[in-house]
């Protein structure tokens, strides 16, 4: 017989530290989850473990030396990072890039989008719990892609291949055949991933309606890229402000509905198919010609008192470069607008109210690479 109300039990929230070293390979990222039983009530992310001062270092390097630093700020999609930088320099110096260089840049950027999304599938598959299979598939496909990059630029990840004005050197003679070979094997890879995960009931049970964010919230936070499109916002810089020759090729922009983890995964899967479509069209339009403008100064100097902000659609979102020059051959200030940092702001909102086991999946689905978050 209870004569009085049962006393309120004092509970304490558990603080779980998801430390800088994870089993899931996202890089050095730390978050502290405040957990009530099984449900996440608060989340505090800690970044900065990978800060190397890339923007400051670029101030001491001229416009050829800086390219090597830019592709280390986003090592998985280095061509896109280099592209923003060289486009900013070209805009200030008013250089005219030859058509052949633009087409090749487009092909390489889309190939890099493929390899970056493959990496996303690999890491995401491990987060969801499949033992290693998506990871191995991802690396199998990435190997073919970076073998191709190695044949072109010499390096597998830090290409330093784009230059202000065009490309550093000509692509090998069998470029078109190699790209077609790589596309064939990437198609098989995309098919494997699609079959492995998309219709798997357990995968759907883990990812549908988990970590959703509405379109209005996503825009307010400043998300961009696939994560934003998964919430239903039709925003793709390749369509709204076309650069290179994106207005001359046909492709669709896949959109999601709920903005949950499954949509972010599925949007990326479809983007890969669209990328392959773009690459095929570019291969047909590729013509011979020079890869650097004829009157290229030996040491590029930019006019004084100019600033420009150039943004491109990197695989992770809007990768922007803000360049201020005060004359001379080195930038006065180089700021990188990092897509992953802005997308990461949404992590707290997406995770509150979800279970702890889902917090890892949500982090994986935003697809961050810490070298871009921290620069």
């Amino acid at each position, binding site marked *: 017989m209870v004569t009085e109300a049962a006393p309120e039990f004092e509970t304490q929230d*558990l*603080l*779980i530290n*998801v430390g800088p070293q994870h*089993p*899931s390979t996202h890089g050095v990222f730390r978050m*502290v989850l*405040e957990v*009530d039983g*099984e*449900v*996440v*009530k*608060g989340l*505090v992310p800690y970044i900065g473990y990978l800060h190397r001062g890339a923007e400051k270092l670029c101030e001491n390097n001229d416009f050829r030396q800086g390219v090597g630093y830019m592709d280390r700020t986003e090592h998985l999609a280095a061509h896109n990072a280099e592209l923003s930088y060289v486009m900013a320099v070209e805009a200030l110096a008013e250089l005219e890039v030859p058509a052949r260089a633009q087409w090749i840049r487009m092909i390489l950027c889309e190939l890099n989008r493929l390899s970056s999304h493959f990496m996303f599938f690999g890491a995401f*598959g491990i*987060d*969801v*719990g*499949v*033992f*290693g*299979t998506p990871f*191995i*598939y991802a690396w*199998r496909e990435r190997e073919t892609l970076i073998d191709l990059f190695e044949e072109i630029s010499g390096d597998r990840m830090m290409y330093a291949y784009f230059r202000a004005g065009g490309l550093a050197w000509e692509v090998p003679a069998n470029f078109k055949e190699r790209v077609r070979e790589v596309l064939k094997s990437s198609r098989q890879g995309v098919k494997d991933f699609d079959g*492995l*995960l998309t219709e*798997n*009931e*357990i*995968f*759907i*049970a*883990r990812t*549908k*309606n*988990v970590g959703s964010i509405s379109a209005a919230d996503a825009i307010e936070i400043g998300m961009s890229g696939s994560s934003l499109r998964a919430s239903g916002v039709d925003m793709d810089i390749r369509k709204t402000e076309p650069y290179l020759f994106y207005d001359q090729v046909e492709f669709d922009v896949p959109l999601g509905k709920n903005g949950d983890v499954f949509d972010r995964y599925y949007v990326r899967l479809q983007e890969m198919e669209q990328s392959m479509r773009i690459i095929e069209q570019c291969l047909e339009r590729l013509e011979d010609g020079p890869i650097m403008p004829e009157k290229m100064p030996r040491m590029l100097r930019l006019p004084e008192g100019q600033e420009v902000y150039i943004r491109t659609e990197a695989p992770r979102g809007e990768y922007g470069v803000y360049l201020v020059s005060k004359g001379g051959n080195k930038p006065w200030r180089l700021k990188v607008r990092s897509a992953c940092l802005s997308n990461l702001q949404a992590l707290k909102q997406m995770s*509150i*109210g*979800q*279970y*702890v*086991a*889902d*917090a*890892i999946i949500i982090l994986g689905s935003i697809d961050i690479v810490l070298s871009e978050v921290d620069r």
Partner: protein
Amino acid sequence: MSDGIFGIENTWLDALIRVQLIVGLMTVVVMGLIYIERKVLARFQQRLGPTRTGPAGLLQSLADALKLVGKEDLRPRNADPWTFELAPYLVFVPVFLGFVVVPFVAGWQVRVVELGLIYFVAVSSLSIIGWIMAGWGSDNRYAMIGGMRAAAQGISYELPLVLALISVAMVADSYDLNQIVAGQSKYPNIVWQPLVVVVFTIAGLAELNRTPFDIPVGESEVVGGPFVEYSGIRWSFFFLAEYAALFILSLIFAAVFLGGWAWPLGEDWGRGWQLVLVSVKAGSFMFLVFWVRVSVPRLRIDQLMSFSWKILLPLMLVQILINGAVLVYHGSLWILTLAGLVGIAVLVKLVGHAVSQPRSKVVVAAPAEGKAAS
């Protein structure tokens, strides 16, 4: 009662020798299983697996065992000494106890027990206590959480497993494994009880803590599992127990559902061929376990529990009712086959329905503004 092994008359000595044989066999088998699993998993992923230690990597398990033996035996300072030390034994001894009743071939078992199946089920559920002890005795809250989850999962899936075995025992009209196998000389039990086979596989995967039910062991996503504080040879006991349990479950599966050594060859083929047959059948179950591990993601703990209680358990209860009805009224056993196939269709439908439900969003009070959780 079977004849004494090597013709020894003294039953105690005979039993002792049989037990020693089992223990010796198990250690070798487990090491071989670990190697086979690594190779098979690697092949699924288009890579090679161990290749360097010994010819084709055969000595890899031995190298791992030697490495584990050489590690420092750590114990946390505040760990409860008795609980912490005894937990590994309580996890792997019950598995070995289960071997008493498992027949490899006709007559090759430690002891013929008339309630063999019941004994096996009773004894194998003792490991759950070991998991809880490991979790609690580690003086680590994450280990305890992991241990509790493992125990919850183990208990939840024990019920469908037991009911599945009871269904088969009803059809075979005996609990003695030898008799069950002998009764399958015409048709293996999988023909009569297809739904039960599916449920047994799923519940077996959960009992073994294998994907997609390996949340306790794959807890390394967020924190370590219940074995986080164990190192060296103690940790390898848990590992040994897992593979021994896999082995024993495969043998039970081969004996109870696929007909053991009696189908399709029958008694007149020699012991050698019967052993090969049993190995093929048990091996196919193990291959299925590896295949599932490599293909499906992990279930969350609440999804796992609701799957067991809301879907598997009711299906098994209905199956037992149907079994009873058909057997009591001497109906044709083919009705059971039909009912089983219908049951599988119902299971698929229920799973699809459960998956497509929108998840209820847990309402949580917003954290106070300005409160910095550090």
